[in-house]
């Protein structure tokens, strides 16, 4: 969706921001249903699952955390994997700081709401500080509300089942990760996409080769080294990063 070129009245722009924010919230809320179900199927309680959605509030990290726990990888590996996936939020916050210029006392809330969706919306409207703030908070709050409602219904639903495995929830986990990965493989220029595919396939292959030799969870952490190598290799050729 392209940003409206100037001239439109502020009211209609605000409405379109709110409408987009609501749509994004509903879509991610639907996704949260599956997170809630998978989390319970991985052995977390309804309350533990909700705690993740309330306070961690970053989808990929939450999925990874319960995925590692469910696979028997243990607490430390689950924490490290979640934090590695969450590291991008630091960069989002860094890019958003100058755009949103949050007052000191609302920084804690701004930080909580800093996720893929709210960042993308804020940066889409970064021509105007007011619109950008509106886009960030409308999207962040909308996703926060629907994400938590979705989580609750998903976890309650799954905990009512005697055997969640029978619904194919174990296959929903890789599908969920793939759905998170997909935009990163298809969203860039042709050349960027090819690099991302190469990185993804290499990382997947490295993790698979290591499965028999390492305890569950560790193969995924080792795959992070592929990203480190790739970023060193591609250091000279990468395009300048926007934002900053």
């Amino acid at each position, binding site marked *: 969706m392209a940003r409206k070129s100037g001239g439109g009245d502020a009211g209609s722009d605000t409405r379109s921001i709110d409408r987009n924010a609501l749509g994004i919230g509903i879509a991610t809320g639907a996704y949260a249903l599956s997170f809630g179900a998978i989390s319970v199927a991985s052995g977390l309680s309804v309350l533990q699952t909700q705690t993740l959605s309330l306070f961690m509030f970053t989808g990929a990290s939450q999925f990874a955390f319960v995925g590692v726990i469910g696979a028997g990888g243990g607490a430390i590996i689950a924490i490290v994997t979640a934090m590695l996936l969450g590291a991008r939020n630091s*960069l989002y916050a860094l890019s958003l700081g100058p755009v949103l210029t949050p007052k000191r006392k609302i920084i804690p809330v701004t930080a909580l709401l800093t996720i893929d969706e709210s960042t993308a919306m804020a940066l889409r409207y970064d021509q105007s500080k007011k619109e950008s703030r509106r886009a960030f908070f409308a999207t962040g709050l909308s996703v926060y509300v629907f994400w938590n409602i979705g989580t609750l219904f998903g976890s309650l639903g799954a905990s009512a089942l005697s055997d969640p495995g029978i619904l194919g929830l174990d*296959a929903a986990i890789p*599908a969920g990760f*793939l*759905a998170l990965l997909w935009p990163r493989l298809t969203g860039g220029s042709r050349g960027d996409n090819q690099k991302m595919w190469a990185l993804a396939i290499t990382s997947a292959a490295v993790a698979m080769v290591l499965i028999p030799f390492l305890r569950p969870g560790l193969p995924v952490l080792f795959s992070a080294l592929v990203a480190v190598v790739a970023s060193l290799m591609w250091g000279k050729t990468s395009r300048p*990063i926007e934002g900053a």
Partner: protein
Amino acid sequence: MWASILIASFGTYAEKLLGYLLPHHMLERESIRRMTSLLPVSLLAALVAVQTFAVDQALAIDARLLGLGVAVVALLLRAPFLVVIIAAAASTAIVRYLGWLP
């Protein structure tokens, strides 16, 4: 379990907070930015592979792979998140119910 949930939640929240509180030059280095943007691709791809093929520390091909294939088709058709996941879970459940794949 509770301890690890709280530590992980605190840790990921601190990451978000850090971006607002730390002086800019600390995170602004090009190499750090690049690495942080590539990390999710590696980790998510590895998670897809492991969650599809691993049974504890062994590799197996079972109904999950079919579910993943269905998810790929759904993504190529630009289906929304929930449809992708339900399609994967439902197809897996059906072939198991029919006894075609474990």
